[in-house]
């Protein structure tokens, strides 16, 4: 168990770096508390797996430090760091039984057989693998195998952190739910630092207390699921999280006024400076409603999902999506939109203007 701290971490797979694009991750600073459940969320290629492998010691970062409990461990190998990692697809030792698979990390550490036996049975119980302990691991289903990989991480009682690299990728959808709640339950039971990498927002938001959103090798926002939803700090977080994502519209800033499509709108922040190359207004479809006045749009289409209606509209400067109640009447043709002030933000060069 340990607190995990990353300081100014950058990594490049190239020998020399000429531009920003040559870095897989750049300038990452993170503070994760002992025993927390964290998620690294981002699209494919954003650097989240690289970051995870740096923490576990499989990759040595180009720049920066990794600290466990305020001790620099950058130079240590994975065994010395004492971490556990679960990979995208189940990694099991085909020729061994389930029992031997779970005992393998302990045997490698020369722990007495008696102790191993007790520990393996305890973990098998927790993961509901007890009945298959004597079967060959290669005969199990994908979720059974993934449980073994997980179990190999859990048998060691002293691990500093358990890392998950998109562990549910190969699991059937109906089993994903079960395994995910199992993970959550395990976290509460054993109270160990868990770091979960995924590109699936549902997985990240349901698993973690704190979600780190990554985009092009950088952290764009760290926060609770509610923070990420209600106050995206970067337009990327806005449209990556939420379904459909946040509406982002170009705007002009004149003095203290924010102008969208020629209409002055109210936003959450007081604007003080406006020396940006690009200014935008972001508002989630959940926080827009039809009104008698406001931003003029043309209603294009309405799709009913059962729980609510998603309305596609077009304004002068771009499309706007609206989520309306399923029993609400949607005007046809021209309409006006009102943005909820508390949830409407102004962004300068894609970052929120504070």
């Amino acid at each position, binding site marked *: 168990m340990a607190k995990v701290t990353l300081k100014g971490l950058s990594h490049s797979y190239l020998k020399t770096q000429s531009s920003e694009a040559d870095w897989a991750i750049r300038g990452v600073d993170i503070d994760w508390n002992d025993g927390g459940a964290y998620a690294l969320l981002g699209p494919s290629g954003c650097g989240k797996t690289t970051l995870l492998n740096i923490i576990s010691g499989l990759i040595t970062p180009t720049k920066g430090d990794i600290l466990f409990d305020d001790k620099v461990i950058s130079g240590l190998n*994975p065994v010395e760091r004492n971490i556990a990692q679960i*990979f995208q697809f189940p990694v099991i030792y085909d020729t061994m039984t389930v029992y031997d698979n779970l005992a393998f990390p302990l045997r490698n550490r020369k722990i007495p057989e008696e102790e191993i036996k007790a520990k393996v049975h305890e973990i098998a119980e927790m993961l509901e693998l007890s009945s298959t302990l004597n079967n060959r691991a*290669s*005969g199990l289903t994908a979720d059974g195998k993934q449980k073994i990989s997980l179990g190999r991480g859990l048998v060691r009682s002293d691990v500093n952190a358990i890392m998950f690299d998109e562990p549910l990728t190969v699991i059937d959808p109906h089993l994903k739910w079960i395994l995910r709640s199992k993970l959550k339950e395990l976290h509460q039971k054993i109270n160990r630092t868990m770091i979960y990498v995924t590109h699936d927002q549902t997985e990240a938001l349901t698993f973690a207390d704190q979600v780190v959103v990554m985009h092009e090798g950088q952290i764009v926002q760290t926060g609770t699921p509610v923070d990420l939803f209600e106050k995206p700090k970067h337009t990327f977080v806005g449209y990556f999280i939420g379904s459909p994502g946040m509406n982002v519209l170009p705007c002009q800033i004149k003095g203290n006024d924010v102008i969208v499509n020629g209409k002055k709108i109210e936003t959450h922040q007081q604007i003080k400076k406006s020396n940006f190359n690009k200014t935008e207004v972001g508002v989630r479809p959940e926080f827009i409603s039809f009104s008698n006045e406001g931003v003029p749009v043309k209603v294009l289409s309405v799709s009913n999902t059962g729980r609510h209606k998603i309305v596609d509209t077009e304004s002068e400067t771009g499309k706007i999506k609206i989520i309306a109640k399923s029993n609400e009447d949607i005007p046809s043709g021209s309409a006006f939109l009102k943005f909820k002030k508390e949830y409407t933000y102004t962004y300068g060069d894609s970052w929120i203007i504070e």
Partner: protein
Amino acid sequence: MNKTVNQKAWFFVIPVFVLVAFNAIIPLMTVVNYAFQETFGNNVFMWEGTRWFKQIMLSERFHASLGRQFLFTFIILFIQIPLGIAIALTMPKEGIGVPVCLVLMSMPLLIPWNVVGAMWNIFALPDIGFLGHSLNALGFDYNFTQQIGDAWFTTILMDVWHWTSLVVLLSYAGLRSIQPAYYQAAEIDGASRWAIFTKIELPKMKKVLTIAILLRFMDSFMIYTEPFVLTGGGPGNATAFLSIDLVKMALGQFDLGPAAAMSLIYFFIVLLVCWVFYTLMMRNEEKS
């Protein structure tokens, strides 16, 4: 659902059938024909029943060449399989070294059998060959044309040189197909290098190794050209493996009946060993 009956489809099978008939069925049936009959030429045949089979099965000469054959095959499998795996493990995994190694490894496989035999014959000649001369200069009494041990040593060395590459290439392909996550997981689990080899690499190479062992078994069990050119089966009959003995009997002595019977026994041994081996290797696979 009713299937459409269309017997005309059989016409499409004819070309394959004709081809297989000419290159396999007809020659094999000719051998079967000879194996049960006696002929004095002029296409006159007399029925002999199983006489030739009994004769071969009881013949000491056959027992001796079969024994030599098994010994030879076991020795080369015992050397080539571990050696091939060891070389594959040390080959580079990326960079310019990969194509260089692969090309170098493939070279021996591209040389025709009789050229390999001729090359090694000259290479090993005790007076002028590089290998033979060097060994003698170092104080070894080496002469593969006269000493049984030297003849075996040279034949085995030649086969190892010629065919280990095949095992290397297959093992290398097997190793390359192992996902990096397996190595990473093993690293995190604290596995030793030996444990990584026995618990990950060997199990993952099982299929390619099965193929490598089968191929090397069949090829070495049917070996003919290389020892024929190198030693001619000598000194005496010391390196007369099954094929060499068979050709001697069929074309040297013109004993067509016994030779045909021996061919069929030979064929069934190869078939039987392959079948047993393959079944054993694949049995566990089905269980899991």
